[in-house]
Protein backbone atom coordinates (compact mmCIF):
# COMPACT_ATOMS: atom_id res chain seq x y z
CA UNK A 1 0.00 0.00 0.00
CA UNK A 2 1.39 3.37 -0.99
CA UNK A 3 2.05 5.80 1.87
CA UNK A 4 0.51 8.98 0.50
CA UNK A 5 1.39 10.87 3.68
CA UNK A 6 5.06 10.85 2.64
CA UNK A 7 4.23 12.68 -0.60
CA UNK A 8 3.14 15.93 1.03
CA UNK A 9 6.19 16.42 3.29
CA UNK A 10 9.08 18.74 2.45
CA UNK A 11 12.02 17.43 0.46
CA UNK A 12 15.49 18.18 1.88
CA UNK A 13 17.51 20.74 -0.08
CA UNK A 14 14.74 21.28 -2.59
CA UNK A 15 14.09 24.98 -2.00
CA UNK A 16 17.76 25.96 -2.32
CA UNK A 17 18.23 24.01 -5.55
CA UNK A 18 15.06 25.38 -7.13
CA UNK A 19 15.89 28.95 -6.09
CA UNK A 20 19.15 28.71 -8.05
CA UNK A 21 17.35 27.14 -11.01
CA UNK A 22 14.72 29.89 -11.01
CA UNK A 23 17.41 32.57 -10.88
CA UNK A 24 19.14 31.05 -13.89
CA UNK A 25 15.88 30.56 -15.78
CA UNK A 26 15.23 34.30 -15.49
CA UNK A 27 18.59 34.89 -17.20
CA UNK A 28 17.36 33.06 -20.30
CA UNK A 29 14.26 35.28 -20.47
CA UNK A 30 16.44 38.31 -21.21
CA UNK A 31 19.04 36.44 -23.24
CA UNK A 32 22.82 36.54 -23.05
CA UNK A 33 23.59 38.99 -25.82
CA UNK A 34 23.71 42.05 -23.53
CA UNK A 35 23.36 40.76 -19.96
CA UNK A 36 22.01 43.12 -17.31
CA UNK A 37 23.17 43.18 -13.65
CA UNK A 38 20.17 41.08 -12.55
CA UNK A 39 21.20 38.43 -15.04
CA UNK A 40 24.75 38.43 -13.73
CA UNK A 41 23.30 37.70 -10.29
CA UNK A 42 21.27 34.80 -11.70
CA UNK A 43 24.39 33.35 -13.31
CA UNK A 44 26.29 33.65 -10.06
CA UNK A 45 23.45 31.91 -8.22
CA UNK A 46 23.76 28.93 -10.55
CA UNK A 47 27.54 28.81 -10.16
CA UNK A 48 27.30 29.02 -6.36
CA UNK A 49 24.70 26.26 -6.22
CA UNK A 50 27.03 23.79 -7.94
CA UNK A 51 30.15 25.01 -6.11
CA UNK A 52 30.68 21.65 -4.41
CA UNK A 53 30.38 19.56 -7.57
CA UNK A 54 33.01 18.31 -10.04
CA UNK A 55 31.88 20.87 -12.64
CA UNK A 56 32.14 23.83 -10.23
CA UNK A 57 35.10 25.47 -11.95
CA UNK A 58 33.65 25.07 -15.44
CA UNK A 59 30.30 26.58 -14.43
CA UNK A 60 31.95 29.44 -12.51
CA UNK A 61 34.04 30.38 -15.53
CA UNK A 62 31.02 30.09 -17.83
CA UNK A 63 28.93 32.30 -15.53
CA UNK A 64 31.64 34.95 -15.57
CA UNK A 65 31.96 34.93 -19.36
CA UNK A 66 28.20 34.96 -19.81
CA UNK A 67 27.77 37.87 -17.40
CA UNK A 68 30.31 39.79 -19.49
CA UNK A 69 28.37 38.97 -22.67
CA UNK A 70 31.22 36.95 -24.16
CA UNK A 71 30.06 33.37 -23.59
CA UNK A 72 31.05 30.90 -26.30
CA UNK A 73 29.27 27.64 -27.06
CA UNK A 74 31.41 25.74 -24.53
CA UNK A 75 30.37 28.21 -21.83
CA UNK A 76 26.68 27.90 -22.65
CA UNK A 77 27.10 24.15 -22.53
CA UNK A 78 28.67 24.41 -19.07
CA UNK A 79 25.70 26.50 -17.88
CA UNK A 80 23.30 23.88 -19.25
CA UNK A 81 25.30 21.20 -17.45
CA UNK A 82 25.18 23.15 -14.18
CA UNK A 83 21.42 23.54 -14.35
CA UNK A 84 21.05 19.85 -15.26
CA UNK A 85 23.17 18.84 -12.27
CA UNK A 86 20.86 20.78 -9.95
CA UNK A 87 17.82 18.99 -11.35
CA UNK A 88 19.72 15.72 -10.98
CA UNK A 89 19.88 16.36 -7.23
CA UNK A 90 16.18 17.30 -7.17
CA UNK A 91 15.40 14.11 -9.08
CA UNK A 92 17.30 11.98 -6.59
CA UNK A 93 15.48 13.55 -3.63
CA UNK A 94 12.09 13.04 -5.28
CA UNK A 95 12.85 9.42 -6.25
CA UNK A 96 14.05 8.65 -2.72
CA UNK A 97 10.70 9.90 -1.44
CA UNK A 98 8.81 7.86 -4.07
CA UNK A 99 10.69 4.71 -3.04
CA UNK A 100 9.89 5.39 0.61
CA UNK A 101 6.21 5.80 -0.24
CA UNK A 102 6.03 2.63 -2.36
CA UNK A 103 8.46 0.60 -0.25
CA UNK A 104 9.96 -0.61 -3.51
CA UNK A 105 13.64 -1.53 -3.96
CA UNK A 106 15.38 0.13 -6.90
CA UNK A 107 18.29 -0.90 -9.12
CA UNK A 108 21.43 1.21 -8.63
CA UNK A 109 22.21 3.76 -11.34
CA UNK A 110 24.77 2.29 -13.72
CA UNK A 111 27.92 4.33 -14.41
CA UNK A 112 27.72 6.60 -17.45
CA UNK A 113 29.01 4.90 -20.59
CA UNK A 114 29.42 7.31 -23.48
CA UNK A 115 27.75 6.16 -26.68
CA UNK A 116 29.28 5.99 -30.12
CA UNK A 117 30.00 9.41 -31.63
CA UNK A 118 27.20 10.82 -33.78
CA UNK A 119 27.54 12.95 -36.94
CA UNK A 120 29.41 15.99 -35.64
CA UNK A 121 28.14 18.43 -38.28
CA UNK A 122 24.49 17.76 -37.45
CA UNK A 123 25.11 18.07 -33.73
CA UNK A 124 27.01 21.31 -34.34
CA UNK A 125 24.16 22.86 -36.32
CA UNK A 126 21.69 21.94 -33.57
CA UNK A 127 23.99 23.42 -30.93
CA UNK A 128 24.48 26.60 -32.94
CA UNK A 129 20.72 27.14 -33.12
CA UNK A 130 20.30 26.51 -29.37
CA UNK A 131 23.11 28.99 -28.64
CA UNK A 132 21.45 31.62 -30.85
CA UNK A 133 18.24 31.06 -28.89
CA UNK A 134 20.04 31.52 -25.56
CA UNK A 135 21.64 34.75 -26.76
CA UNK A 136 18.33 36.19 -27.99
CA UNK A 137 16.46 35.03 -24.87
CA UNK A 138 12.75 34.33 -24.71
CA UNK A 139 11.98 38.06 -24.93
CA UNK A 140 14.15 38.38 -28.00
CA UNK A 141 12.43 35.62 -29.97
CA UNK A 142 11.40 36.38 -33.52
CA UNK A 143 9.98 34.35 -36.40
CA UNK A 144 13.28 34.06 -38.19
CA UNK A 145 15.05 32.59 -35.17
CA UNK A 146 12.22 30.13 -34.43
CA UNK A 147 12.06 29.07 -38.08
CA UNK A 148 15.81 28.46 -38.07
CA UNK A 149 15.21 25.13 -36.34
CA UNK A 150 13.30 23.66 -39.28
CA UNK A 151 16.36 22.99 -41.40
CA UNK A 152 18.26 21.50 -38.46
CA UNK A 153 15.35 19.22 -37.54
CA UNK A 154 14.81 18.07 -41.13
CA UNK A 155 18.44 16.97 -41.25
CA UNK A 156 18.26 15.17 -37.88
CA UNK A 157 14.93 13.35 -38.25
CA UNK A 158 15.88 10.64 -40.75
CA UNK A 159 18.75 9.32 -38.58
CA UNK A 160 17.38 6.94 -35.91
CA UNK A 161 20.28 7.65 -33.55
CA UNK A 162 19.48 11.38 -33.67
CA UNK A 163 15.74 10.99 -33.19
CA UNK A 164 15.82 12.02 -29.52
CA UNK A 165 17.46 15.36 -30.30
CA UNK A 166 15.26 15.84 -33.38
CA UNK A 167 11.90 15.41 -31.62
CA UNK A 168 13.04 17.56 -28.72
CA UNK A 169 14.10 20.45 -30.98
CA UNK A 170 10.99 20.06 -33.14
CA UNK A 171 8.59 20.32 -30.20
CA UNK A 172 10.60 23.12 -28.59
CA UNK A 173 10.85 25.18 -31.80
CA UNK A 174 7.10 24.83 -32.42
CA UNK A 175 6.41 26.37 -29.01
CA UNK A 176 8.86 29.20 -29.64
CA UNK A 177 7.31 29.84 -33.08
CA UNK A 178 3.82 29.97 -31.59
CA UNK A 179 5.05 32.49 -29.00
CA UNK A 180 6.63 35.03 -31.37
CA UNK A 181 7.41 37.85 -31.10
CA UNK A 182 8.93 37.37 -27.67
CA UNK A 183 8.73 41.04 -26.69
CA UNK A 184 4.92 40.80 -26.50
CA UNK A 185 4.91 37.60 -24.40
CA UNK A 186 2.70 37.98 -21.35
CA UNK A 187 3.79 35.00 -19.30
CA UNK A 188 6.74 32.78 -20.09
CA UNK A 189 7.08 29.04 -19.33
CA UNK A 190 10.48 29.76 -17.79
CA UNK A 191 11.28 26.39 -16.27
CA UNK A 192 9.91 24.39 -19.18
CA UNK A 193 11.83 26.24 -21.89
CA UNK A 194 15.03 26.22 -19.87
CA UNK A 195 14.56 22.45 -19.38
CA UNK A 196 14.15 21.90 -23.11
CA UNK A 197 17.04 24.21 -23.94
CA UNK A 198 19.44 22.59 -21.44
CA UNK A 199 18.47 19.09 -22.48
CA UNK A 200 18.95 19.97 -26.14
CA UNK A 201 22.40 21.38 -25.37
CA UNK A 202 23.46 18.17 -23.59
CA UNK A 203 22.09 15.96 -26.37
CA UNK A 204 24.29 17.82 -28.87
CA UNK A 205 27.33 16.43 -27.07
CA UNK A 206 28.99 13.58 -28.96
CA UNK A 207 28.44 10.39 -26.95
CA UNK A 208 25.58 11.77 -24.83
CA UNK A 209 23.28 9.01 -26.06
CA UNK A 210 24.13 5.54 -27.28
CA UNK A 211 23.50 4.40 -30.84
CA UNK A 212 20.17 2.80 -29.94
CA UNK A 213 19.05 6.15 -28.60
CA UNK A 214 18.64 4.78 -25.08
CA UNK A 215 20.50 2.84 -22.46
CA UNK A 216 22.54 -0.15 -23.51
CA UNK A 217 21.11 -3.64 -23.49
CA UNK A 218 22.17 -5.43 -20.30
CA UNK A 219 20.01 -8.57 -20.14
CA UNK A 220 17.52 -10.69 -22.07
CA UNK A 221 14.18 -11.44 -20.46
CA UNK A 222 12.20 -14.67 -20.67
CA UNK A 223 8.92 -14.84 -18.82
CA UNK A 224 5.52 -13.17 -18.50
CA UNK A 225 4.76 -9.52 -19.18
CA UNK A 226 1.73 -8.13 -17.35
CA UNK A 227 0.67 -4.68 -18.61
CA UNK A 228 -0.38 -1.97 -16.15
CA UNK A 229 -1.31 0.79 -18.57
CA UNK A 230 -0.33 3.08 -21.43
CA UNK A 231 1.23 6.54 -21.08
CA UNK A 232 0.85 8.74 -24.18
CA UNK A 233 3.04 11.71 -25.15
CA UNK A 234 2.63 13.94 -28.16
CA UNK A 235 3.55 17.26 -29.68
CA UNK A 236 2.45 18.61 -33.03
CA UNK A 237 4.85 16.45 -35.04
CA UNK A 238 5.67 13.43 -32.88
CA UNK A 239 3.88 10.84 -30.78
CA UNK A 240 5.27 8.38 -28.23
CA UNK A 241 3.51 5.72 -26.18
CA UNK A 242 5.00 3.83 -23.28
CA UNK A 243 3.43 0.67 -21.87
CA UNK A 244 4.25 0.16 -18.19
CA UNK A 245 4.26 -3.47 -17.14
CA UNK A 246 5.38 -5.99 -14.54
CA UNK A 247 7.77 -8.65 -15.80
CA UNK A 248 7.77 -12.05 -14.04
CA UNK A 249 10.80 -14.15 -15.02
CA UNK A 250 10.12 -17.75 -16.03
CA UNK A 251 12.88 -18.92 -13.68
CA UNK A 252 10.97 -17.65 -10.65
CA UNK A 253 13.33 -14.74 -9.93
CA UNK A 254 12.08 -11.40 -8.57
CA UNK A 255 9.56 -9.47 -10.68
CA UNK A 256 10.61 -6.08 -12.07
CA UNK A 257 9.00 -2.99 -13.54
CA UNK A 258 9.60 -2.58 -17.27
CA UNK A 259 8.46 -0.32 -20.09
CA UNK A 260 8.01 -0.81 -23.81
CA UNK A 261 8.01 2.23 -26.09
CA UNK A 262 6.97 3.12 -29.59
CA UNK A 263 7.14 6.49 -31.34
CA UNK A 264 6.55 8.01 -34.74
CA UNK A 265 6.92 11.41 -36.38
CA UNK A 266 3.56 12.74 -37.62
CA UNK A 267 1.91 15.65 -39.42
CA UNK A 268 0.18 17.96 -36.91
CA UNK A 269 -3.29 17.13 -38.29
CA UNK A 270 -2.97 13.47 -37.23
CA UNK A 271 -4.49 13.57 -33.73
CA UNK A 272 -6.77 11.55 -31.44
CA UNK A 273 -7.32 8.02 -32.73
CA UNK A 274 -4.87 8.84 -35.54
CA UNK A 275 -1.89 8.64 -33.19
CA UNK A 276 -2.88 5.13 -32.06
CA UNK A 277 -3.14 4.15 -35.74
CA UNK A 278 0.42 5.32 -36.38
CA UNK A 279 1.80 3.41 -33.39
CA UNK A 280 -0.17 0.19 -33.20
CA UNK A 281 1.42 -1.68 -36.15
CA UNK A 282 4.83 -1.42 -34.46
CA UNK A 283 4.05 -2.60 -30.92
CA UNK A 284 1.66 -5.53 -30.48
CA UNK A 285 1.80 -4.86 -26.75
CA UNK A 286 -0.43 -1.79 -27.27
CA UNK A 287 -3.32 -3.98 -28.36
CA UNK A 288 -2.55 -6.58 -25.68
CA UNK A 289 -2.60 -3.88 -22.98
CA UNK A 290 -5.78 -2.32 -24.35
CA UNK A 291 -7.55 -5.67 -24.52
CA UNK A 292 -6.28 -6.94 -21.16
CA UNK A 293 -3.84 -9.64 -22.28
CA UNK A 294 -0.50 -10.66 -20.87
CA UNK A 295 2.41 -11.45 -23.22
CA UNK A 296 5.09 -14.06 -23.13
CA UNK A 297 8.65 -12.87 -23.80
CA UNK A 298 11.54 -15.03 -24.96
CA UNK A 299 14.96 -13.43 -24.77
CA UNK A 300 13.68 -9.84 -25.00
CA UNK A 301 16.57 -7.38 -24.61
CA UNK A 302 16.21 -4.89 -21.76
CA UNK A 303 18.27 -1.99 -20.39
CA UNK A 304 19.19 -1.32 -16.75
CA UNK A 305 16.43 1.28 -16.72
CA UNK A 306 13.86 -1.40 -17.50
CA UNK A 307 13.31 -0.31 -21.12
CA UNK A 308 12.51 -3.29 -23.33
CA UNK A 309 14.14 -3.02 -26.75
CA UNK A 310 11.07 -4.46 -28.41
CA UNK A 311 11.27 -7.10 -31.08
CA UNK A 312 7.98 -8.70 -32.14
CA UNK A 313 9.48 -12.09 -32.90
CA UNK A 314 10.37 -12.51 -29.23
CA UNK A 315 6.74 -12.19 -28.10
CA UNK A 316 3.57 -14.23 -27.98
CA UNK A 317 0.14 -13.11 -26.75
CA UNK A 318 -0.70 -14.89 -23.49
CA UNK A 319 -3.93 -15.42 -21.57
CA UNK A 320 -5.98 -12.50 -20.32
CA UNK A 321 -4.66 -10.54 -17.35
CA UNK A 322 -6.72 -8.00 -15.44
CA UNK A 323 -4.70 -4.84 -14.72
CA UNK A 324 -6.06 -4.48 -11.20
CA UNK A 325 -5.14 -8.08 -10.39
CA UNK A 326 -1.63 -7.33 -11.65
CA UNK A 327 -1.53 -4.16 -9.55
CA UNK A 328 -2.77 -5.92 -6.40
CA UNK A 329 -0.84 -9.18 -6.70
CA UNK A 330 2.34 -8.52 -8.70
CA UNK A 331 3.05 -4.80 -8.20
CA UNK A 332 3.70 -4.94 -4.41
CA UNK A 333 6.80 -7.12 -4.82
CA UNK A 334 8.46 -5.59 -7.92
CA UNK A 335 11.88 -3.98 -8.17
CA UNK A 336 12.03 -0.59 -9.86
CA UNK A 337 14.50 0.22 -12.65
CA UNK A 338 17.52 2.50 -12.43
CA UNK A 339 17.58 5.98 -13.95
CA UNK A 340 20.05 6.65 -16.76
CA UNK A 341 22.44 9.45 -15.73
CA UNK A 342 21.13 11.78 -18.45
CA UNK A 343 17.55 11.16 -17.35
CA UNK A 344 17.96 12.38 -13.78
CA UNK A 345 15.26 15.03 -14.05
CA UNK A 346 11.99 15.07 -12.08
CA UNK A 347 9.92 15.39 -15.27
CA UNK A 348 11.08 11.88 -16.17
CA UNK A 349 9.68 10.29 -13.00
CA UNK A 350 6.69 8.07 -13.81
CA UNK A 351 6.31 5.44 -11.10
CA UNK A 352 3.42 2.98 -11.43
CA UNK A 353 1.33 2.82 -8.24
CA UNK A 354 -2.03 1.49 -7.10
CA UNK A 355 -4.16 3.90 -5.06
CA UNK A 356 -7.38 2.80 -3.40
CA UNK A 357 -9.43 3.48 -0.29
CA UNK A 358 -9.68 7.17 -1.18
CA UNK A 359 -12.45 9.70 -1.31
CA UNK A 360 -12.64 12.01 -4.31
CA UNK A 361 -12.31 15.76 -3.72
CA UNK A 362 -13.63 17.94 -6.55
CA UNK A 363 -13.89 21.11 -4.48
CA UNK A 364 -11.09 22.98 -6.27
CA UNK A 365 -10.53 23.31 -9.99
CA UNK A 366 -8.87 19.90 -10.10
CA UNK A 367 -9.71 16.35 -9.07
CA UNK A 368 -7.86 15.05 -6.01
CA UNK A 369 -7.87 11.78 -4.12
CA UNK A 370 -7.88 12.05 -0.33
CA UNK A 371 -5.99 9.08 1.07
CA UNK A 372 -5.64 8.79 4.86
CA UNK A 373 -6.33 12.52 5.20
CA UNK A 374 -3.68 13.49 2.61
CA UNK A 375 -4.60 15.10 -0.69
CA UNK A 376 -3.05 13.73 -3.88
CA UNK A 377 -3.81 15.86 -6.97
CA UNK A 378 -4.88 13.89 -10.05
CA UNK A 379 -3.66 15.08 -13.45
CA UNK A 380 -6.85 14.51 -15.45
CA UNK A 381 -5.48 16.86 -18.14
CA UNK A 382 -3.20 14.16 -19.52
CA UNK A 383 -5.79 11.58 -20.51
CA UNK A 384 -5.54 10.69 -24.22
CA UNK A 385 -8.12 12.26 -26.56
CA UNK A 386 -9.05 8.85 -28.01
CA UNK A 387 -9.77 7.05 -24.75
CA UNK A 388 -12.81 5.93 -22.75
CA UNK A 389 -11.09 7.18 -19.58
CA UNK A 390 -12.41 10.66 -18.81
CA UNK A 391 -12.04 13.06 -15.90
CA UNK A 392 -15.58 12.08 -14.93
CA UNK A 393 -14.69 8.38 -14.81
CA UNK A 394 -11.69 9.24 -12.64
CA UNK A 395 -13.88 11.27 -10.29
CA UNK A 396 -16.31 8.35 -10.01
CA UNK A 397 -13.64 5.76 -9.20
CA UNK A 398 -12.73 3.76 -6.09
CA UNK A 399 -9.37 2.38 -7.22
CA UNK A 400 -6.79 3.81 -9.60
CA UNK A 401 -3.62 2.57 -11.23
CA UNK A 402 -1.55 5.59 -12.07
CA UNK A 403 1.89 7.04 -12.61
CA UNK A 404 3.27 9.03 -9.74
CA UNK A 405 4.76 12.22 -11.18
CA UNK A 406 6.32 15.36 -9.82
CA UNK A 407 6.03 18.84 -11.33
CA UNK A 408 6.04 22.45 -10.12
CA UNK A 409 7.01 21.40 -6.60
CA UNK A 410 4.39 18.75 -5.94
CA UNK A 411 3.40 15.16 -6.58
CA UNK A 412 0.61 14.33 -9.03
CA UNK A 413 -1.10 11.11 -10.01
CA UNK A 414 -1.57 10.44 -13.73
CA UNK A 415 -4.40 7.89 -14.11
CA UNK A 416 -3.77 4.82 -16.30
CA UNK A 417 -6.85 2.83 -15.26
CA UNK A 418 -9.70 3.12 -12.79
CA UNK A 419 -12.22 0.83 -11.19
CA UNK A 420 -15.68 2.34 -10.99
CA UNK A 421 -17.15 3.17 -7.57
CA UNK A 422 -20.68 2.33 -8.73
CA UNK A 423 -21.93 -0.60 -6.64
CA UNK A 424 -23.78 -2.25 -9.50
CA UNK A 425 -20.64 -2.78 -11.54
CA UNK A 426 -16.91 -3.15 -11.15
CA UNK A 427 -16.04 -1.87 -14.59
CA UNK A 428 -12.42 -1.14 -15.34
CA UNK A 429 -11.69 1.79 -17.66
CA UNK A 430 -8.18 2.17 -19.10
CA UNK A 431 -6.53 5.26 -20.62
CA UNK A 432 -5.06 3.06 -23.36
CA UNK A 433 -8.15 0.90 -23.93
CA UNK A 434 -8.42 2.08 -27.54
CA UNK A 435 -4.70 1.82 -28.34
CA UNK A 436 -5.24 -1.34 -30.36
CA UNK A 437 -8.56 -0.22 -31.85
CA UNK A 438 -12.11 -0.14 -30.54
CA UNK A 439 -15.65 -1.26 -31.24
CA UNK A 440 -16.98 1.65 -29.15
CA UNK A 441 -19.27 3.84 -31.26
CA UNK A 442 -17.61 7.24 -30.71
CA UNK A 443 -14.17 5.62 -30.76
CA UNK A 444 -14.85 3.96 -34.11
CA UNK A 445 -16.03 7.29 -35.54
CA UNK A 446 -12.76 8.91 -34.49
CA UNK A 447 -10.85 6.00 -36.04
CA UNK A 448 -12.64 6.55 -39.36
CA UNK A 449 -11.96 10.31 -39.33
CA UNK A 450 -8.29 9.67 -38.58
CA UNK A 451 -8.04 7.14 -41.41
CA UNK A 452 -9.50 9.73 -43.81
CA UNK A 453 -6.94 12.31 -42.67
CA UNK A 454 -4.00 10.02 -43.38
CA UNK A 455 -5.54 8.93 -46.69
CA UNK A 456 -5.77 12.55 -47.90
CA UNK A 457 -2.21 13.30 -46.77
CA UNK A 458 -0.77 10.15 -48.35
CA UNK A 459 -2.61 10.88 -51.57
CA UNK A 460 -1.15 14.40 -51.61
CA UNK A 461 2.29 13.09 -50.73
CA UNK A 462 2.07 10.53 -53.53
CA UNK A 463 1.21 13.28 -55.99
CA UNK A 464 3.59 15.99 -54.83
CA UNK A 465 6.60 14.45 -53.09
CA UNK A 466 7.38 12.06 -55.91
CA UNK A 467 6.39 14.24 -58.87
Amino acid at each position, binding site marked *: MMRADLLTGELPGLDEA*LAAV*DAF*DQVLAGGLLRPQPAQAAGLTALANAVAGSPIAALVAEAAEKAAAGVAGEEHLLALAAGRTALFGAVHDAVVARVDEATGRPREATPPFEPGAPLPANLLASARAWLCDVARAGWRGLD*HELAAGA*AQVVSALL*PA*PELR*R*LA*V*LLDGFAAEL*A*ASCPGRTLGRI*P*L*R*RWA*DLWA*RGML*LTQPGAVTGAG*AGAETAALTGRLLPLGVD*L*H*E*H*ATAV*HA*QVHAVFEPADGGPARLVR*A*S*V*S*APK*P*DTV*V*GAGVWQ*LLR*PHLSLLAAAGEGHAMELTGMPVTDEGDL*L*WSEERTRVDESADVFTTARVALPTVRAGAT*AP*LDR*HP*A*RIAEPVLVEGYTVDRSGDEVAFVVGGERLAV*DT*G*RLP*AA*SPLTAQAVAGSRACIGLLRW*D*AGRFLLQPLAVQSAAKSRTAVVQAGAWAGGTADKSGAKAEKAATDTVT*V*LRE*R*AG*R*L*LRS
Partner: protein
Amino acid sequence: MPMWEESSLVRVVPTARPRKLAKVPFVELAAGRLQGVVSSGSDVSRVYVSSVASGDFAFACRTNNNRPCGGARGGFCNHIGAMVGEAVLQYGGARVARYLQTDTADGDAAPTAQQLAAAMSAARPQQAADAQAVTGQVFARFLRHLAYLELPATTAPLPEMHWFPTAGAVA
Protein backbone atom coordinates in the same frame (compact mmCIF):
# COMPACT_ATOMS: atom_id res chain seq x y z
CA MET B 1 1.06 32.94 -12.42
CA PRO B 2 3.82 31.01 -10.61
CA MET B 3 2.53 27.51 -11.54
CA TRP B 4 2.98 28.33 -15.22
CA GLU B 5 6.52 29.61 -14.76
CA GLU B 6 7.63 26.78 -12.45
CA SER B 7 6.18 23.86 -14.35
CA SER B 8 8.29 21.66 -16.62
CA LEU B 9 5.19 20.16 -18.18
CA VAL B 10 2.86 23.07 -18.82
CA ARG B 11 1.16 22.91 -22.22
CA VAL B 12 2.23 25.89 -24.31
CA VAL B 13 0.67 24.94 -27.65
CA PRO B 14 -2.75 23.26 -27.65
CA THR B 15 -3.20 20.14 -29.78
CA ALA B 16 -4.66 20.78 -33.23
CA ARG B 17 -8.36 19.97 -33.39
CA PRO B 18 -9.42 17.26 -35.83
CA ARG B 19 -10.86 18.51 -39.13
CA LYS B 20 -11.51 17.14 -42.61
CA LEU B 21 -8.54 17.75 -44.90
CA ALA B 22 -10.04 17.23 -48.38
CA LYS B 23 -10.56 20.92 -49.16
CA VAL B 24 -7.63 22.45 -47.26
CA PRO B 25 -4.97 19.77 -46.72
CA PHE B 26 -2.58 22.11 -44.94
CA VAL B 27 -2.88 25.21 -42.78
CA GLU B 28 -0.47 26.69 -40.26
CA LEU B 29 0.32 29.79 -38.22
CA ALA B 30 3.99 30.32 -38.99
CA ALA B 31 6.56 32.91 -39.99
CA GLY B 32 4.14 35.68 -39.03
CA ARG B 33 1.48 34.47 -41.45
CA LEU B 34 -1.61 32.33 -41.66
CA GLN B 35 -0.68 30.14 -44.60
CA GLY B 36 -1.95 27.03 -46.22
CA VAL B 37 -2.67 24.92 -49.25
CA VAL B 38 -6.16 24.75 -50.78
CA SER B 39 -7.34 22.11 -53.23
CA SER B 40 -8.52 23.29 -56.63
CA GLY B 41 -12.21 22.62 -57.13
CA SER B 42 -11.70 21.56 -60.73
CA ASP B 43 -8.23 20.03 -61.16
CA VAL B 44 -6.93 17.33 -58.75
CA SER B 45 -3.30 17.96 -59.68
CA ARG B 46 -3.51 21.67 -58.88
CA VAL B 47 -3.43 23.33 -55.48
CA TYR B 48 -3.52 26.96 -54.44
CA VAL B 49 -1.02 28.30 -51.94
CA SER B 50 -2.66 31.02 -49.85
CA SER B 51 -1.37 33.29 -47.11
CA VAL B 52 -2.33 36.30 -45.02
CA ALA B 53 0.29 38.21 -43.03
CA SER B 54 -0.11 39.06 -39.39
CA GLY B 55 -0.72 42.78 -38.69
CA ASP B 56 -1.28 44.26 -42.17
CA PHE B 57 -3.09 41.21 -43.66
CA ALA B 58 -1.05 41.42 -46.87
CA PHE B 59 -2.27 38.43 -48.83
CA ALA B 60 -1.14 36.11 -51.57
CA CYS B 61 -2.80 33.32 -53.51
CA ARG B 62 -0.98 31.52 -56.30
CA THR B 63 -0.98 28.03 -57.76
CA ASN B 64 1.71 25.48 -56.87
CA ASN B 65 3.32 26.46 -60.19
CA ASN B 66 3.40 30.02 -58.86
CA ARG B 67 0.80 31.51 -61.22
CA PRO B 68 -1.46 34.17 -59.71
CA CYS B 69 -4.97 33.21 -58.62
CA GLY B 70 -7.54 35.07 -60.71
CA GLY B 71 -9.79 35.61 -57.70
CA ALA B 72 -7.20 37.36 -55.53
CA ARG B 73 -6.58 40.59 -57.52
CA GLY B 74 -8.37 43.19 -55.43
CA GLY B 75 -8.95 41.29 -52.19
CA PHE B 76 -9.33 37.90 -50.55
CA CYS B 77 -10.33 35.08 -52.91
CA ASN B 78 -12.41 32.01 -52.04
CA HIS B 79 -9.24 30.01 -51.36
CA ILE B 80 -8.16 32.46 -48.65
CA GLY B 81 -11.69 32.35 -47.24
CA ALA B 82 -11.57 28.54 -47.11
CA MET B 83 -8.15 28.64 -45.48
CA VAL B 84 -9.34 31.03 -42.75
CA GLY B 85 -12.32 28.75 -42.13
CA GLU B 86 -10.18 25.64 -41.71
CA ALA B 87 -7.65 27.53 -39.55
CA VAL B 88 -10.48 28.41 -37.17
CA LEU B 89 -11.49 24.72 -37.05
CA GLN B 90 -7.91 23.59 -36.42
CA TYR B 91 -6.74 26.24 -33.96
CA GLY B 92 -9.89 27.93 -32.69
CA GLY B 93 -10.88 31.50 -33.62
CA ALA B 94 -9.19 33.09 -30.61
CA ARG B 95 -5.75 31.73 -31.46
CA VAL B 96 -6.04 32.71 -35.13
CA ALA B 97 -7.20 36.23 -34.18
CA ARG B 98 -4.35 36.64 -31.72
CA TYR B 99 -1.75 35.48 -34.23
CA LEU B 100 -3.06 37.69 -37.05
CA GLN B 101 -3.61 40.63 -34.66
CA THR B 102 -7.17 41.34 -35.81
CA ASP B 103 -9.40 43.63 -33.70
CA THR B 104 -11.87 40.77 -33.26
CA ALA B 105 -9.71 39.60 -30.36
CA ASP B 106 -11.66 41.65 -27.79
CA GLY B 107 -14.71 40.20 -26.05
CA ASP B 108 -15.08 36.74 -24.58
CA ALA B 109 -16.45 34.85 -27.56
CA ALA B 110 -13.89 33.53 -30.04
CA PRO B 111 -14.46 35.14 -33.45
CA THR B 112 -15.92 33.06 -36.25
CA ALA B 113 -14.17 32.63 -39.60
CA GLN B 114 -16.65 35.09 -41.17
CA GLN B 115 -15.92 37.71 -38.51
CA LEU B 116 -12.18 37.26 -38.98
CA ALA B 117 -12.35 37.51 -42.76
CA ALA B 118 -14.65 40.55 -42.56
CA ALA B 119 -12.41 42.32 -40.07
CA MET B 120 -9.35 41.77 -42.25
CA SER B 121 -11.11 42.76 -45.48
CA ALA B 122 -12.35 45.96 -43.82
CA ALA B 123 -8.71 47.01 -43.40
CA ARG B 124 -8.38 46.96 -47.23
CA PRO B 125 -5.32 44.72 -47.32
CA GLN B 126 -2.88 44.73 -50.25
CA GLN B 127 -1.34 41.92 -52.26
CA ALA B 128 1.88 40.90 -50.54
CA ALA B 129 4.85 42.48 -52.32
CA ASP B 130 6.81 39.23 -51.95
CA ALA B 131 3.88 36.98 -52.97
CA GLN B 132 5.98 34.86 -55.31
CA ALA B 133 8.67 34.15 -52.70
CA VAL B 134 6.09 33.48 -50.01
CA THR B 135 4.31 30.96 -52.24
CA GLY B 136 7.53 29.01 -52.69
CA GLN B 137 8.21 29.02 -48.96
CA VAL B 138 4.71 27.90 -48.01
CA PHE B 139 4.70 25.13 -50.60
CA ALA B 140 8.06 23.91 -49.27
CA ARG B 141 6.57 23.88 -45.76
CA PHE B 142 3.68 21.76 -47.04
CA LEU B 143 6.04 19.24 -48.62
CA ARG B 144 8.07 19.12 -45.41
CA HIS B 145 4.84 18.53 -43.49
CA LEU B 146 3.89 15.64 -45.78
CA ALA B 147 7.35 14.14 -45.39
CA TYR B 148 6.63 13.43 -41.71
CA LEU B 149 4.37 10.58 -42.84
CA GLU B 150 7.29 8.93 -44.60
CA LEU B 151 9.57 8.76 -41.56
CA PRO B 152 9.72 5.34 -39.87
CA ALA B 153 8.36 4.57 -36.40
CA THR B 154 10.79 3.24 -33.80
CA THR B 155 10.51 1.19 -30.60
CA ALA B 156 13.58 2.81 -29.05
CA PRO B 157 12.53 4.82 -25.98
CA LEU B 158 12.33 8.60 -26.43
CA PRO B 159 12.74 9.98 -22.90
CA GLU B 160 12.45 13.56 -24.19
CA MET B 161 8.78 12.97 -24.98
CA HIS B 162 8.02 12.97 -21.25
CA TRP B 163 8.13 16.77 -21.60
CA PHE B 164 5.19 16.53 -23.99
CA PRO B 165 2.31 14.84 -22.18
CA THR B 166 -0.77 14.29 -24.29
CA ALA B 167 -3.15 17.17 -23.72
CA GLY B 168 -6.21 15.02 -24.22
CA ALA B 169 -9.42 16.15 -25.81
CA VAL B 170 -9.58 19.84 -26.67
CA ALA B 171 -13.00 21.34 -26.03
